[in-house]
């Protein structure tokens, strides 16, 4: 036997997996339409219908911009991961990969690259549509920085949660049936479609458990003038708390993933 050739480098396998994940997402019409275009359609429709002022010369569409971007991040991460990975588990993709020398980390790196790409594209389209159709005021100065960390932290938390949740349903289709209504309800009570301060308090309390409310709140600090912070239930944007809750979800999500992730279908022994 000849001397063993060395295993491919992690960097190379990571690159390959990233390429695979990007192709898998952007070539699938359903995922592109539902994940990428759904928030854009929401923005176009809501922007046209809910054309009123929320005070201080700010339109609801400006308020909605923060919410719909938060919803877009949720779709690109939690919904995308939960449904995508459940599908890959039930159709045998995961089992197949587990039988190869692909390092486990490469699978998750690929997913992270996919989520980041989808998130960036979604946000870019939303901003362009918002500015062109509804004259949205773009963030300025350090608001971009806040934008970046809220999006990044929120997307990390929701990606991990999505990976964890993907182990619950039987297959991809039941994952969709489980996660889609959950995400929709969460959007309704988290201040995406309506002003958060006008939602019943008990619903606010439920929403405050999950990351979406905090993402939307953090992004409102980016898209709304500081004067409107007074409209928040807490009377301020609470950016410190936004960071803390999202970080806590990153930790919880990570623990859940490590404990629950399975390479095989439950029906498969």
């Amino acid at each position, binding site marked *: 036997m000849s001397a063993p*050739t060395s295993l*491919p480098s992690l960097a190379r396998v990571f690159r390959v997996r990233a390429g695979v994940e990007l192709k898998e997402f952007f070539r699938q019409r359903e995922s592109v339409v539902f994940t990428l275009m759904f928030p854009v359609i929401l923005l176009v429709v809501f922007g046209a219908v809910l054309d009123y002022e929320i005070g201080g010369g700010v339109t609801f569409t400006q308020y909605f911009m923060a919410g719909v971007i938060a919803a877009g991040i949720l779709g690109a991460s939690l919904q995308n991961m939960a449904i995508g990975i459940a599908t890959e588990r039930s159709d045998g993709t995961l*089992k*197949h990969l587990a039988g*190869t020398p692909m390092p486990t980390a490469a699978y998750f790196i690929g997913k992270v690259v996919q989520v980041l790409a989808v998130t960036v594209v979604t946000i870019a389209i939303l901003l362009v549509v918002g500015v062109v159709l509804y004259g949205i005021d773009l963030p300025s100065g350090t608001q971009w920085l806040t934008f970046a960390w809220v999006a990044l932290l929120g997307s990390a938390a929701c990606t991990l949660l999505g990976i964890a949740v993907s182990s619950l349903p039987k297959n991809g289709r039941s994952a969709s049936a489980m996660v889609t209504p959950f995400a929709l309800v969460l959007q309704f009570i988290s201040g995406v479609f309506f002003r958060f301060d006008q939602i019943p308090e008990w619903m606010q309390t439920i929403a405050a458990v999950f990351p979406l409310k905090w993402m939307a709140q953090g992004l409102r600090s980016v898209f709304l003038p500081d004067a409107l912070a007074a409209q928040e239930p807490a009377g301020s944007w609470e950016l410190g708390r936004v960071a803390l809750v999202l970080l806590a979800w990153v930790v919880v999500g990570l623990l859940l993933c490590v404990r629950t992730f399975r390479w095989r279908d439950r029906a498969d022994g």
Partner: protein
Amino acid sequence: MSAPLDRDAAISIRGLVKTYGERNAVDGLDLDIRRGEIFALLGPNGAGKTTTVEILEGYRSRDGGDVQVLGQDPATGGRRWRSGIGIVLQSGAGDSQLTCLELLRAQAAYYPDARDPAEVLELVGLAEKAGARGRALSGGQRRRLDVALGIVGKPALLFLDEPTTGFDPEARRQFWSLIRSLRDLGTTMLLTTHYLDEAEELADRVGVITGGRLVEVAVPGELGGRQTAPAVVSWTEDGARRTTPTPTPTAFVAELAARFGGEVPDLAVTRPTLEDVYLQMIGQPA
């Protein structure tokens, strides 16, 4: 327990046990598979076939016994060990938006010394489908893609779990010649199948597993003492079909020929097929 593990074998198993609840799905199984050999594992559903193979593939843990696959315990085999084996799952490799060639290129990138993806497509007869996505392939073509994914890493040992289920006879024959060309390249193969003609055609040895144990291991022609089993001579006489089992069919037929003074009507001499002895072994009436 019997002899120690055979370290030169591709696969060596001693006293393998796997328990589900109260039941031993695998119940003290011993087996050695030589390097370069094609071994077919036969057995009814629920006999412990899949469980055994999945323990060898490193998918499942075992509850007892010793196992070595390519010189290592599959339960602790790392990336290096994995790069020596190829797996063609019964369930296939999943759905994908990637083309055949893209899938093979990605798969090849996980291995230290992979085959050229384009050559592998050629080898499995999918060269003209290089740019097609999985969903555009027929059932047989998908299965050949699964095999291509299994061999692109140039494995020393290939697991094939019911590789030709759903094939038409033509596709099955093409597949068989693919397996033979892999054997010529030195690949060891462990094949599970429900098709006894396939086992007979391809395997150097077959093993029959029932109730979690190997009841016999033999070359296909000798399983269950087939080669010395009495032949059955049948013919038509006085408008009725006659059959007689005999250990000396040649003498018997000569006798018949003398009696009929020439051709014996509808004469046939048969020996038990692999299927006959297999069904007898697993306790089914043939």
